[in-house]
């Protein structure tokens, strides 16, 4: 059993942790530098010259998708709340079927760099592109907050930095590194970081899973018995420990489940990965690879979560710096001592870094391509100007993420990510689906759906128990309470509302869109003529 001396001390060796993490940064930096030599055009910078294979891109998608929320968040949630934490894993995985069946290939065939390319294909360019850039920035911001919050928690555990100022410094360092990766490497460098990270994360989680099972004679049932014994609560094996307490919490859980399963196919940074491959067929292969890798990883989380409950114990985890988010690193320490803790923490850091880099390049591409090049410069930016704007945007987003991360430090990560999923599913999914499959869909429908979905999701979050009304809310006090919306995830209201608004706006729109564009989009989405191929240097 593990004993933590004081809440601010690290169970491992801080210098060992820093050393392993430093080695990771050094190795990946070299790779990023080498990969980025050919970054010349916008297609190179945003879409890695469309030169990745399905397998490489699939690993990168897994690297982009398996964020700190999946590793630290879900393992912590299972260790603390038992089975209810595993429901996150299932939702995050099944969601990929929406991406595979409805979105991936059609999107690859119709777009170039961003979600805005597809959404504005047959609608009015200006307003739709602006809306798509706004929702992209909003979703990326929520997702970034979650990752940076994870970085803060991890740091407090690893380096024994308990005070706010020290953690803020480390969040700044992580943010600075991320800016460097994206500035230097563009999409190609970012993709390589994600591939390396995916391999490290899945291998690390796999080794820990086998280790935990081996300690229990490869008897999963015996592991569960031990977890129950240590937690002193047999209910951790059953659903309902967290979400079964009241009618309201049950509805809250349905809302979460809906947001998880519908959010993935609307996450701008996931959608953008489909453009880094040369054809729709490779996009399909990427998703298949990603589903296998992600699915296997989520099965690991079940063992790791109960493993952390059995070998570390919920009460020790709750008392540790970083709280539930530290369950996975603490399990690594219980298994393999300071060395495994250092390795697994480096993996967790790499996870955060890679996801943050992916989000940043997506947000920057959306601003530079959809707003600057297409709206401000009316589609005719000077050569090289678009990439220059994208690079500047990277720096600004990086700074915003650092500030936001310092603010969100200490929040539950899996939960924050679920909010990003809810915003994505509300603001983006209806418009993506309608514009691909509904002939009559119009600009008004798109704008109503995107802004309606975005605003309703954010307003409902702002007035939910997440933000105010309790000591565990973001405002951290019971004194301020404007939480009139009872659910902590807005999906069950905002997603259907956004679908409804898209329909209503279209039906009320007196104008119609160019039918020739609709024909072109439908034909291209299914057959992909002249889709931009890989660039060669």
């Amino acid at each position, binding site marked *: 059993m593990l004993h933590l001396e004081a809440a601010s001390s690290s169970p491992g060796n801080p210098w060992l942790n820093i050393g392993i993490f430093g080695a990771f940064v050094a190795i990946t930096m070299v790779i990023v530098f080498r990969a980025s030599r050919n970054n010349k055009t916008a297609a190179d910078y945003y879409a890695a010259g469309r030169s990745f294979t399905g397998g490489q891109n699939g690993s990168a998608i897994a690297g982009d998708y398996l964020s700190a929320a999946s590793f630290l968040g879900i393992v912590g949630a299972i260790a603390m709340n038992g*089975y*209810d934490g*595993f*429901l996150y*894993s*299932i939702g995050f*995985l*099944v969601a990929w*079927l*929406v991406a*595979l069946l*409805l979105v991936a*290939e059609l999107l690859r065939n*119709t777009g*170039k760099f961003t979600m805005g*390319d597809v959404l*504005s*294909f047959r609608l009015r*360019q200006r307003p739709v592109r602006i809306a798509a850039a706004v929702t992209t920035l909003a979703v990326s911001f929520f997702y970034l907050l979650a990752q940076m919050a994870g970085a803060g928690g991890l740091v407090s555990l690893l380096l024994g930095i308990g005070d706010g100022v020290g953690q803020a410094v480390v969040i700044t360092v992580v943010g600075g590194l991320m800016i460097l990766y994206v500035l230097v490497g563009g999409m190609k460098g970012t993709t390589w970081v994600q591939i390396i990270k995916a391999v490290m994360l899945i291998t690390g989680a796999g080794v820990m899973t086998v280790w935990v099972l081996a300690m229990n004679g490869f*008897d*999963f*049932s*015996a592991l*569960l018995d031990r977890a129950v014994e240590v937690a002193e609560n047999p209910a951790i*094996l*059953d*659903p*309902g420990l967290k*979400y*079964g307490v009241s009618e309201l919490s*049950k509805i809250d*859980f*349905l809302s979460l489940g809906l947001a998880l*399963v519908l959010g993935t196919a609307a996450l701008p940074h996931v959608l953008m990965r489909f453009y880094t491959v040369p054809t729709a*067929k490779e996009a*399909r292969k990427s998703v*298949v690879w990603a*589903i296998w890798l992600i*699915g296997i990883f989520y*099965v690991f989380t079940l063992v790791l979560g109960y493993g952390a409950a059995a070998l570390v114990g919920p009460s020790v985890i709750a008392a540790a710096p970083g709280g539930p988010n530290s369950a996975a690193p603490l399990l690594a320490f219980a298994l393999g001592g300071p060395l495994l803790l250092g390795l697994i923490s480096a993996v967790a850091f790499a996870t955060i870094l890679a996801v943050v880099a992916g989000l940043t390049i997506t947000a920057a591409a959306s601003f530079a391509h*959809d707003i600057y090049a*297409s709206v401000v410069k*009316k*589609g*005719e930016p000077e050569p090289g100007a678009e990439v220059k704007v994208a690079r500047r945007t990277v720096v600004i987003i990086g700074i915003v993420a650092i500030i936001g991360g310092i603010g969100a430090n200490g929040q539950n990560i899996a939960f924050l990510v679920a909010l990003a999923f809810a915003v994505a599913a509300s603001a983006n999914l209806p418009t993506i689906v309608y514009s691909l*499959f509904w002939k009559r869909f119009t600009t008004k429908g798109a704008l109503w759906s995107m802004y309606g979905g975005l605003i309703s999701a954010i307003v409902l979050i702002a007035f939910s128990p997440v933000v105010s009304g309790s000591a565990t809310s973001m405002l951290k006090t019971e004194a301020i309470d404007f939480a009139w919306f009872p659910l902590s995830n807005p999906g069950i209201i905002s997603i259907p509302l956004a679908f409804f608004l898209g329909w209503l706006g279209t039906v009320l729109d007196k104008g119609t869109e160019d*039918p*020739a564009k609709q*024909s*072109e989009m*439908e*034909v*291209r989405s*299914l*057959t*992909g*003529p*002249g*889709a*931009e191929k890989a660039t060669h240097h």
Partner: protein
Amino acid sequence: MGNDALSAEVDLSHVDYHAVQKSPEFQELRRTHRSFVFPVLAACLVWYLAYVLLAVYAVEFMSTRVFGSINVAMLIGLAQVVTTFAVTMWYVRFANKHFDPQAERIRDEIESGVFFDKADEGVAN
């Protein structure tokens, strides 16, 4: 503007996409695509929703122990993973066998100029 997106090696600015869309081959592809994708996805989402509802409203059933301490909830959860893998493989096989050849044929016709403007008469095929 913005959708100069797909200008590539072949100049496709003269393609009459409306004619392609109306062609029987394309209608066939569209039908094949939709009649696979929509029902399969709907079934998967219903299956997932059933799982979520069971986890929330049928806790006792989900808590039934099956092997040792392994309960129904864990088995259904793993079944979700298995069905996700199975549907993925099924889709890939179906797409390789049915979508790709049809799409490729239409793409070749488009890129070789069969559907260029004013060629509507030749489209019937």
